[in-house]
């Protein structure tokens, strides 16, 4: 018995390093593709010009961070767009939960399944395809204009994707179209996890549908809702690049430009690598700070961290 145990211990020890060395190639891959780019942050402190090696470029100190202040008019506009669209997105989060709650009330299993399959589809297409779809529906010879024209409701084509006044709402609507069905799945899982006995007890007590939803389902999914909301808050500055890149056009430029797009424009179109990097650093630092703040908040409120 003891001998067998010893053999096992020796076996384990000899395998400690073996396992480690097998993992090393993967660690190297992660290092190359996820950590080395971080060293690129150093470009924010130099007057980096593409093609000139780093040791030949003059040190710039915090100049590029100060530049953010000098560019505050642009940056303010960009941050306003970013925050407004993020907040609109946050305001829509209860819809995900509502979508799941009411779907859960449906009796037909096959209907539920069909709803899930069809409404999650838009989540799996690229933003280029989303743009293709919306372009074909909203451009001047697209579906919407054809139909409106056909019924004689309009004389000249409307241009929804080029309307600066409504672009925030249009983009939020597009996000909801793409993500509503998929986002609801996590709530469906949460609802499935609620103790069925609670529902049975409510039924015995004669509680109606809406009472049951309000008193059992809603509290049951509240923790999920809360965690997702906090994660969204920590992601407020990153509404993503793809969507705003594909839907960007000169007509809506002032209202659609978000931080990720601005970073791209400054870096790639204006070739100002240093300033763009400085912007990226600030964004990451703020996002991580937000994440930890929100995490602490979650710990204090729920006694459980979210990351």
């Amino acid at each position, binding site marked *: 018995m003891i001998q067998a145990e010893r053999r096992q211990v020796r076996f*384990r*020890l000899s*395998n*400690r*390093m073996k*396992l*480690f060395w*097998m993992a090393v190639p*993967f*660690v190297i*891959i*992660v290092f*190359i*593709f*996820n950590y080395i*780019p*971080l*060293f*690129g942050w150093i*470009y924010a402190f130099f007057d980096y010009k593409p093609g000139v090696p780093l040791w030949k470029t003059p040190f710039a100190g915090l100049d590029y961070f100060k530049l953010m202040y000098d560019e505050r008019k642009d940056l303010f506009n960009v941050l306003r767009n970013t925050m407004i669209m993020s907040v609109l997105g946050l305001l829509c989060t209860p819809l995900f939960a509502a979508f799941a709650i009411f779907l859960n009330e*449906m009796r037909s299993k096959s*209907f539920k399944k069909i*709803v*899930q*399959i*069809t*409404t999650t*589809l838009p989540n*799996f*297409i*690229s933003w*280029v*395809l989303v*743009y*293709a*779809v919306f*372009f*074909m*529906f909203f*451009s001047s*010879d697209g*579906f919407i204009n054809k*139909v409106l024209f056909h019924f004689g409701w309009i004389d000249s084509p409307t241009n929804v994707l080029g309307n600066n006044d409504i672009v925030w709402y249009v983009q939020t609507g597009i996000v909801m179209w793409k993500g509503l069905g998929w986002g609801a*799945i996590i709530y469906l899982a949460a609802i499935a996890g609620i103790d069925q006995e609670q529902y049975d007890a409510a039924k015995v007590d004669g509680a109606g*549908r809406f009472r049951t939803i309000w008193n059992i389902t809603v509290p049951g999914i509240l923790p999920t809702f809360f965690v997702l909301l906090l994660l969204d808050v920590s992601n407020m500055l*990153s509404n993503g*690049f793809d969507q705003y890149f*594909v839907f960007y*056009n000169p007509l809506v430029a002032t209202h659609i430009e978000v931080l990720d797009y601005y*970073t*791209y424009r400054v*870096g*790639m179109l204006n070739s100002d*690598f240093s300033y*763009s990097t400085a*912007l*990226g650093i600030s*964004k*990451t630092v703020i996002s991580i700070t937000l994440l930890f703040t929100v995490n602490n908040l979650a710990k204090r409120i729920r006694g459980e961290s979210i*990351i």
Partner: protein
Amino acid sequence: MKRFQIGEFSFHSINYIVYTLFMLLCIYPFYYILINSISSPDAIIDGVYFFPKGFTLDTYIQLFQSDNIINAFIVSASRAVIGTVVTVIACAFFSYLITKREMFARKFVYRFVIITMYLNAGLIPWYITMRGLGLKDNYLLYILPTIISAYFIILIKTYMESLPIVLEESAMMDGAGYLRLFSHIILPVCMPILATVAVFHAVNQWNSWTDNYFLVSNPKLQTLQLILLNYLRQAESMASDANRQLITSAAGITGFRVSSASVRLAITMIVTLPIMMVYPFMQRYFVKGIMMGAVKG
């Protein structure tokens, strides 16, 4: 009692209507694009809403005769297949190693990888790094950077930890090494989660275009997504859509006698269809994430 039933009835009716409308909103656009892409250009101008009019596959035939579309299709499809195989195997093996408690510096290795979920260097540092690694205009750009994904590692590791240890112990007694244990015992029982990860990654790969946009200018390495985007941009820049004449697309497809609208519609369909085809699998595997008595079987 009667009022209760009326309430029930209207509740369900409203529910059915709302969900059906939203389903239509999600599905009809694709149907609309499909029927338009197989209708004649003249019919498209008049409007095609329910069924194809003047059925023709000319656009598709012409598209599949042009080299750059076929080439882009091969690039997109191959990156989806190769990228997925490599990523799934790498993530699965790494997760397997991580589940071994006796590994030296296990916690550190795991955290080193997982923390990358929260680290984002930003566009320019990423761009400079990839260029520095020689991945500009290089096919490997589509495969290598996404080999290890923290998210997939978490999914697979969690699944593996739910497996009964008994599975491995018997094989270990026979003196099988880690590689053998992994490939013969662990891999087969992890199929549900690996299939989920595979479908996720394949869809991601198929949908990727920013890497192409920023770092690949070689026409031989263009992805379908970017070609579609270029067509849309082109159409957008001709925004004086009023003159809907037949045009010869300037994007390299010469001698085209189909309208630019048809081309856009058909390419959109070519890009969408593969997603729709792998999609049912996604649904199945997503729900089925739980291990089913592998010990017994």
